[in-house]
């Protein structure tokens, strides 16, 4: 028994997969990294959501202060980035959920799904911001 264990823990050369540095940025790799990056970014963005709710509960003064930041062009840029990240993470997440069932899990469908996720992100972000955009333009 013990000799068996020893033989299994002797060191041997394992095959090494290519390091990240030698890859280009194929779509599916970019999608995977973006899914994680947007996930982390969104979780940090939760601080702003907490700020909004706590400010609203604290009364009109704190709330107005928050809205001053939120409606400032920089605040609006953050909010826009938040919607893009959230839509991307949402649609990309659904793509992952489909894969979890074992369906569409091949290179061709992964690419088609990736493009669909990007398109859906653009379309839904545009739809969400369209009323605002119209307001600014008119």
């Amino acid at each position: 028994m013990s000799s068996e264990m020893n033989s299994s823990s002797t060191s041997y050369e394992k095959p090494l997969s290519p390091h990240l540095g030698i890859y280009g940025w194929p779509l599916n790799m970019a999608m995977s990294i973006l899914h994680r990056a947007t996930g982390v970014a969104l979780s940090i963005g939760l601080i702003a959501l907490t700020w909004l709710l706590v400010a609203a509960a604290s009364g009109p003064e704190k709330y107005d202060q928050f809205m001053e930041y939120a409606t400032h062009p920089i605040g609006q840029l953050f909010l826009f980035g938040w919607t893009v990240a959230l839509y991307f993470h949402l649609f990309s997440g659904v793509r992952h959920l489909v894969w979890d069932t074992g369906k569409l899990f091949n290179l061709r469908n992964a690419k088609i799904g990736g493009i669909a996720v990007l398109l859906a992100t653009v379309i839904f972000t545009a739809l969400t911001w369209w009323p605002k955009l119209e307001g600014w333009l008119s």
Partner: protein
Amino acid sequence: MKMKWEKTDKKSDMARATGLGSAGDGTHHWMAQRVSAIALVPLVFWALWSVVNLVGADHAAFTEWLSAPINAILMILFIVTTFYHAVLGNQVVIEDYVHCECLKIAKLIGQKLFFAALGVACAFSILQIAL
């Protein structure tokens, strides 16, 4: 510091494997992440639509909106599920990219406490407004 899974003379293969990754409770984590993700699909559509439309609303309008039971309930569901999902996601990222064992445990616990505190602050604020 040697990593837990690294080979040393005195460690058995079992000692190197237990308590890490799928030797711990990976299946539960995996399931919880998916279930919370499915719950978040409709909630996120609702939250995105609501928040973007509410930007610029004054305090009275915002609190009136959040006082409606349907909005308060959905907001609390959104908050609880989102923070839970965020903790699970950040945990995976930390496990994958932080390799120093001591730092990793500190970050894993730290992020859990951090998001738990934010989540409770959100839920309390919603109830304070709605009730």
